[in-house]
């Protein structure tokens, strides 16, 4: 049922760049996936906050519910670094999150959801050179929810700890690899808030003046 608009529960061009499975298999996995990747979280957002929001897409009467939440952690500090996986019991619940929650706010940040191939051990860690997410090394704005300014040391982080750690690489979020891929699909306007460079805008754009309400 959707010939005149495209549903919001379609997989985007988000993917796990390190996956070893081929594209056909990936598509199959996604079409029955129960796992979501959640991005643009504040470093301070807790699992319980995530649980509260994502429970609203759960269908316990249908045998569903939140199976687990895996916080994305900085590889070096083992502290949250702004992403997580939410795993449901059913695929329908994951789709509901795509439709209803992706692009809304949690902890006053616009979060983004994507269907995921399924969590595997090791994927909970940031893949950036500093230990966190790659996107935080390319940010140019001040983002208090994600550690403030991008620190200088990121510039020559090749020499820093964790730079050569095995299984490095990165969660290729579209915006973080924009420089090396001219083939990548441009961000569509409705993806606003996913893009860190729009971070400033997204913080102001939905403020509704309470006095007017």
């Amino acid at each position, binding site marked *: 049922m959707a*010939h005149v608009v495209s549903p919001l529960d379609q997989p*985007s061009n988000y993917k796990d760049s390190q996956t070893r499975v081929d594209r056909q298999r990936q598509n199959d996995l996604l079409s029955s996936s129960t796992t979501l990747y959640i991005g643009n979280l504040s470093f301070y957002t*807790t*699992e319980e906050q995530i649980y509260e929001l994502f429970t*609203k897409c759960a269908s316990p*009467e249908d045998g569903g*519910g939140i199976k687990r939440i895996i916080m994305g952690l900085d590889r070096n500090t083992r502290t949250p670094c702004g992403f997580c996986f939410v795993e449901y019991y059913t695929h329908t619940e994951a789709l509901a999150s795509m439709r*209803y929650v992706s692009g809304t706010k*949690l902890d006053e940040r616009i979060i983004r959801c994507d269907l995921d191939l399924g969590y595997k051990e090791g994927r909970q860690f940031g893949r950036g050179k500093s230990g966190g997410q790659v996107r935080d090394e390319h940010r140019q704005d001040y983002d208090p929810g994600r550690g403030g300014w991008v620190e200088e040391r990121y510039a020559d982080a090749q020499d820093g700890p964790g730079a050569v750690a095995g299984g490095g690489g990165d969660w290729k979020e579209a915006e973080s690899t924009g420089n090396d891929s001219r083939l990548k699909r441009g961000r569509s306007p409705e993806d606003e808030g996913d893009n860190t460079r729009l971070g400033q805008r997204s913080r102001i754009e939905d403020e509704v003046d309470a006095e007017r*309400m």
Partner: protein
Amino acid sequence: MSYDRSHRGGGNRRRHRDDYDDRRRDAYESPADKLKTAIIKFGDVDVEEELPRKHSHVISNLSEAFRIAVTEQPYKIPHYAALLRRLHDSDSTEETPPTTDDASLGKQILEDFWKGFQAYLDKLAWRETRLCIHFFAHLTVAKLISTDSMFGLLQSFTAVLEEFGVSHGRAKKAAVCAAEGLMIGGPILKASSSERVQEVINAIQSYNDTVTSPKWLIGPILKMYSDEGSTSNADELLDIVLQALRTLDKSDFAETASSFSQPYISYADPDLTAFTPYNLPSVLVPPEVVELDGLSTDSGEDAQVKKEEWPEYFLRLFDNDASSRVTPDPKTPAGYAVHSGLIDILDIFEVNRKECARLLIEYPKWTIPGTFKPKPGGTVVPEPVPGKDWQLESTVIENVLGAYFVLPESSHKSIYYIGLITELCKLSPSTVGPAVGKSIRKLYSTLGDGLDVEVARRFAEWFAVHMSNFGFQWVWKEWIPDLSLAVQHPKRAFMRRALEFEIRLSYHDRILKTLPEEMQAPEGHTISEQAPGPDFEYDDPAKPHHDAALAVLNLFRGRAKAEDVISHLDTLKVTLETSDDGGVVNADLLIRSIAIQSLLHIGSRSFSHLLNAIERYLPLLRNIASGGASSAGGGGNAEAKADILTASAAFWKHNRHMVAIVFDKLMQYQIVDPTDVVGWTFINRAEIRELSEATGPLSLSAFEWDLLKGALDKANGRVMIARRKVMALRKEEDDTRARVKASGGADGNAMDVDSEVKAEETPAVDSPALTTALKAFASLTREQKGALSRTLDGFVSCLAPGSSDSNPNPHSRVVISEQGWTDRAGWEKDEWNSWETWGWYRQFCRSYAPYLRNYSTTLYTVSFAKFDGSTDPAAELLKKTWNVSTGQE
């Protein structure tokens, strides 16, 4: 015919496929694409042979485009009718009458469109069916379809209303199909036969007259003492349909023109000597498919679940002044048209809330000019139509909220409506924001005047998520005066609940700062004093058993094996029982409390820590749940399981969110059963004073309801999974048998006759997997029935307590009397608690009715037989609510 062009020229991509993976490439091919390809590729193989096929191909693509257009963009239907009318005309530049006979393109498309309609009807795709009827009704007014066959179509739908034992869901949808068709086609239909118009209206009316008692239970404004369903600020779907129809009928459908667009109305009439209007073939609405899976519970009850069987009430927010209405009254023809138009958009575009919001805001474009107030600064300012000139944003929000508050449950998840309103606010903050604010104030004002408890709960949920999306900016100070109300007054309960939900999405400090001092103050009883943290009872060295608990905690911290912890606890128990000061009275209880609280303590850092702790110590938890008897699962010890729940709730007494999460996971890992949680919620919960608003006499608040709902949904969800498993295994076995049979038949020649006969005589034996699945299904339906029965029993003892019951609520009979309700200004905490408990009982009955119906006889006997012959008003109301829910009244 599909030439997937995206596969070609993709060589470049393939080499880079790690960088580029557009999964949308297999997207739906639009009729336009198909049509274009069909024409361009025409003759590539054999032009002679392709020609006739190509013709029908072009027509079917065009009609498919019309079908998609009509069923997915209902707001454009009148214009599609005009377009199709043009396609009937010989000269499409002028509004000339259709002259050419059957050969016109339009006629061929219409005939093909009909096939699509028939397909929707065969699938009982009600919305698509209804929207096609809209289209046919417009085409009847545009004189392309004969009035006689249109009547025939409508009467196929009213015939459904007279089916024996028709379900309400089916009747409601059929009635609306007929009614809306008549509203649109009325002007020409009535001119052709006013009797047949009466027949349609009367059929709907007489059906609607039979559904009075469910209305009493399902309205969003509670009047428990009265039998009436209707209230001033809520409209029931069939009621408004009928009122709008009657109004239209009175004026011979003159108002249709001011309610529905008719862009084709000025077109010249066809020359009936040369043009025959299309006769819609007659149809029969197919019966509902009852999926007979033959699965029943061990006591032979049917285990099917059927929903959507209730009347549909829409809460109206803006109705105070009829002379200057800001939103349409859905009982009027024009108001109904707007209402149903908006609800259709809401349902169709559920897949994309952002597009949905845009379409709702653009809705005036599709209505008759003057329906809505023009946007400020617009270039064309239409003359406002008297009685219309409504406010778009208020109308949209009223309808979205109306759909959200439908009882017992909305058609989509709460979060859809909430997210949609967020998108609406983002699209046009300066106009939608105020409409949202007004709606919140209006809803708040009805709290305490009978707003249904479930509606109030959804209101709090919406409020919290909405505020979470808009910086938690609410002008709390305007509600300060309400702090003088009784602490359990619905308004105060709402404030507490909304703030609790806000904290769950944010954090305590953040939310505390949004409040004025009066509400921050502890004596305001509005927000918890501290951040909701854990409370390890044995933390304080001065507390008894601190050392014993610390030892257990250290075992957990050191990741001791579950068996080692079990034996440590056994030793500890002996020590406690034989201690110098005469021994602990209930050593079991104490051991359970220490073990559970210590385990939760190591799992208190996060949800994941909790899961890890539970998973690592499953053998220990099973051992405790079984009362220490054995660690082999199966039932467990009811007292031990209640103690586990009590210890968990005590540990998280300052954080009710965590209580719900821990209970859920304990059920998930089958440490406790849903029945245990239900029993605990009614009985043991009162032991932890901090946790509950509903202390004092037995009663339930929204928090307890959430626990009950969690348990019942878990029980029902398990039955659902078990059923699916059985079905899948059965199908697998049937397939295997069929394959064996087929291959046996092929090899038949080689087989000797005797063995073939023998093989056929062997009865089908279920595989071990299926046997196990069936056993699981049987035990899970038992558990489901147990949980439902326990809940019903719990409500009965809360609401109609016998004089001998412990801690009876003396108010349960007062709050349901008319006098009691009239005097509610003087109600204190206990009265409001009791009233809320009644509200949750109603929600339990109507929301779980699909499950309760299967067990209605047994459950009635168990819980209500004792009231036979009783004139206790509480018993009467309990029984009446039950009977209406289970379809016996």
